[in-house]
């Protein structure tokens, strides 16, 4: 048997921090970055006698997510306690959901190498976050003491668990990207992995292709970016395949992704022998979910990425690729819709956004809403080009300035005298001068060196500081040569 004969099976558990203003079971703020232990109260500190009260917005967001992931919504649900001792867990239990998750049996569709793949979503459940430990010293092993910050304790999370339907690290990455897009469309989380508002653990196993039996899995933790997920899973996939082919036993264990070393490391088995003693939380009455409410939430769902892709293809005649790229971010998709309303050529708009807008955003590391850009800016630049007022090269420069300053493109063009020279007499004179000054090049061209024409046009552009109408220059040369 060779590596190619082995199949990888991956399931993902994604924790998403919900962007509610207050915590899941008390009224403390969830704002990120406050001074330690300033967003706490008797409830989230786990003081004696304090009781949890469910923030209804958490339930709403969880249902919203469940619906967007094509899940069934439970009519009866409840909260359970997951009991364990840890200094960042004030009550010594986490309020979570064990056997009656709020949403179950859904799916997410992704496209892998042009092929549609459906990843099953087993369940979506609600839970609360723990606090944060700050170790004094370099690492936990040498720390002489630890401090506890409970600002995060009680912040609402949802956990989204897939079926073991993912077959490669690349599929895992695509699933995560899609999931993040959907959740951002819903507005239930900002999904910032660097702030920990999106976290991903994975289960991975290998088996001979064609086998329906699952292999022994390892659970991989501590992958703190999409790239880390991809790298961590790729490493683990290789490790397990090699072990399998070498006839080594694969043990069920939790493995830590070590980003700097680029490997996964098995954790001590002591940490795994946890019995969480789950039982229904007697402080929180069981949830009876009103189906009318669920339907109201469904009716309020925004246009989700898949639907939007389909509409962009149908309504604007965009290629699949354009539609996918433009809908990855809801803001960009909205921006595109707005531009198209102002400009008649949807494909031209798409080209400009994909090449110019996304390029500049990427280069700056910014989100669209962090720039002064408006749809009018894009359509004005396109119009200036259409009307031959400026060339494509000038347009890029003008747009870049608009992107940074928010200034009107027409104004920039006027102020800097960038209006294209389309005066045939004037251009004819310059073309004649260039021909006269470069007899050798003209000779080359006549001897069949096509490149020579490019050089000559370049000379005209240089003389006009890029303002010459390129089509007209091209024609004039061809006429005279």
């Amino acid at each position, binding site marked *: 048997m060779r590596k190619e004969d082995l199949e990888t099976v991956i399931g993902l558990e994604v924790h998403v921090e919900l962007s509610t203003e207050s915590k899941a079971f008390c009224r403390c703020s969830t704002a990120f970055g406050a001074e330690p232990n300033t967003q706490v109260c008797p409830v989230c500190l786990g003081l004696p006698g304090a*009781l949890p009260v469910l923030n209804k917005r958490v339930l709403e967001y969880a249902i919203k997510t469940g619906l967007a992931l094509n899940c069934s919504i439970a009519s009866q649900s409840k909260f359970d306690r997951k009991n364990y001792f840890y200094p960042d867990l004030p009550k010594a239990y986490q309020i979570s959901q064990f056997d009656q998750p709020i949403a179950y049996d859904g799916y997410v569709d992704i496209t892998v190498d042009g092929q549609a793949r459906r990843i099953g979503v087993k369940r979506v459940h609600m839970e609360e976050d723990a606090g944060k430990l700050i170790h004094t010293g370099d690492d936990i092993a040498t720390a002489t003491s630890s401090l*506890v910050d409970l600002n995060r304790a009680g912040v609402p999370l949802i956990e989204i668990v897939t079926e073991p339907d993912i077959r490669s690290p690349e599929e895992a990455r695509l699933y995560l990207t899609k999931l993040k897009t959907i959740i951002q469309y819903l507005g239930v989380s900002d999904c910032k992995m660097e702030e920990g508002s999106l976290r991903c653990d994975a289960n991975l196993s290998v088996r001979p292709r064609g086998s329906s039996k699952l292999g022994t899995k390892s659970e991989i933790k501590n992958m703190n970016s999409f790239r880390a997920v991809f790298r961590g899973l790729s490493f683990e996939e290789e490790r397990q395949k090699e072990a399998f082919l070498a006839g080594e036993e694969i043990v069920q264990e939790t493995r830590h992704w070590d980003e700097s070393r680029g490997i996964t490391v098995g954790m001590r088995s002591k940490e795994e022998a946890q019995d969480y003693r789950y039982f229904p939380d007697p402080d929180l009455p069981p949830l009876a979910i009103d189906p009318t409410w669920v339907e109201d939430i469904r009716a309020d769902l925004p246009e989700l990425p898949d639907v939007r892709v389909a509409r962009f293809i149908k309504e604007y005649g965009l290629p699949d690729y354009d539609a996918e790229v433009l809908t990855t971010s809801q803001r960009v998709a909205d921006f595109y819709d707005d531009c198209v309303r102002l400009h008649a050529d949807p494909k031209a708009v798409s080209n400009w956004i994909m090449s110019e807008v996304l390029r500049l955003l990427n280069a700056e590391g910014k989100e669209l809403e962090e720039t002064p850009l408006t749809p009018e800016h894009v359509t004005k630049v396109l119009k200036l080009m259409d009307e031959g007022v400026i060339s494509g090269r000038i347009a890029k420069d003008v747009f870049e300035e608009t992107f940074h300053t928010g200034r009107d493109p027409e104004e920039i063009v006027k102020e800097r005298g960038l209006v294209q020279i389309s005066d045939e007499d004037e251009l004819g004179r310059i073309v004649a001068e260039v021909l006269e000054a470069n007899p050798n090049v003209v000779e080359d061209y006549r001897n069949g060196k096509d490149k020579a024409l490019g050089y000559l046009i370049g000379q005209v552009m240089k003389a006009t500081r890029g303002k010459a109408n390129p089509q007209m220059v091209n024609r004039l040369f061809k006429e005279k040569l």
Partner: protein
Amino acid sequence: MELWDLTVHELSRLLATGEVSAVEVTQAALERAQQVEPAVRAFVTSTADQAVVEANTVDAARARGEQVGPLAGIPMALKDNICTRGVRTTCCSRLLEKFAPSYDATVVRRLQEAGAILMGKTNMDEFAMGSSTENSAFFPTHNPWDLERVPGGSSGGSAAAVAAGEAVFSLGSDTGGSIRQPAAFCSVVGLKPSYGRVSRFGVTAFASSLDQVGPFTKDVTDCALVLNAIAGKDELDPTSVVDTPPDYRQFLGKDIKGLRIGLPREYFAEGIDDEVKEVIMKAVGVLEGLGAVVEETSLPHTEYAPSVYYILAPAEASSNMGRLDGVRYGRRVEAPDVDTLYNRTRSQGFGAEVRRRLMIGTYALSAGNYEVFYQKAQQVRTLIVRDFEQAFTQYDVLLTPTSPTTPFKIGEKIDDPLQMYLSDICTIPVNLAGIPGLSLPCGFSQGLPVGMQLLAKPFAESTLLQVAYAFEQNTDYHKQRPQVTVGGESNA
């Protein structure tokens, strides 16, 4: 009659007419406490100084002609598992010996709004686990009727304080009988409201699905008055019920002619002291004399209640009390690593009975045991609930002894947990069913108090008060007071 001997409604009348001041009433209770406390030991913390200040505030408000609350100027005591802002709340545990909460329990806030004056925090079995108050980490409380005997538990201090006249009323908590059994032992009125009737916010949880807070009072009228002050929905307790409670005074004095009372035979079976039974049957006779229709009935799953209770209550407790880990508050026993810190803090901080129950509860929830113990117990709990539902289709009230025996001697059962657990067999099923239960003084056996327990369907506290009041109006047990012997002399 002495001021400390009066009831809430009697004192309220005197305070309203200006015959006495809140300061005088408070002083009287403080003096009484000074006198009997060395013998009774009901309190673990006194708030005497604060009490006098508060009493002055009440008098000043009244003097200005301001509207004062329904319990204005009435001295009260609170069980020490009820959180009081700035006043230590120890649960009578070494672990919380110095813990002073930053918040008031909802019941405390409500009583303070009603104008009641806190005299102090009362002794209890550690974390409310026990039936005699002997499990207090500090000292046992003595029954004012016989100082060699226990006051019952776990709210023994609250019951004894009212019986001895050190507070006019008090609050306790009841998870399996911890209000009713000490009420019976100390011959005062004790009410465990329906689950959800009174907020649990700020009351240190023992078993969340069973705990309720309720009053100890000298008579039924006072019980209605205190219940009025503490009952009702609390936004901070999701298990408190939404509907607005009635003014419970309106049910006092209502005729009980034709009212149907059931005597569940399982509560009069073996294990119940014959003399207790005799006293109870005499009391039943009084109610019959008032026109109530009394019949024997059955609650067939009663015998399983203690087993169910001693799985569910410890299971919930094992989780509720995980937070007492020495990390954020309470006593900490330092250690080189956090696991050892947990172990040392908890094994040195908790007493033997608490440790026993936490072990039982942890065991019952563990993988492989959950289905056998916890889940099975929940199923049987449902059967017990149905027993009561069935019975209440036929009866307005069920009547039983509150405790199988009269107060036992200090030390008599402390080394025999099973015997101690049986002390709650009449009260435990009531918590499992979530129904209200009231214990009422109904006589004496060899000079020791006997209480009868009245039960009704959920949220029918009104019916309990109606029947109890009718009984009280036709007997004088509630007027009898213990002769507290201090240093060989009795102090009536």
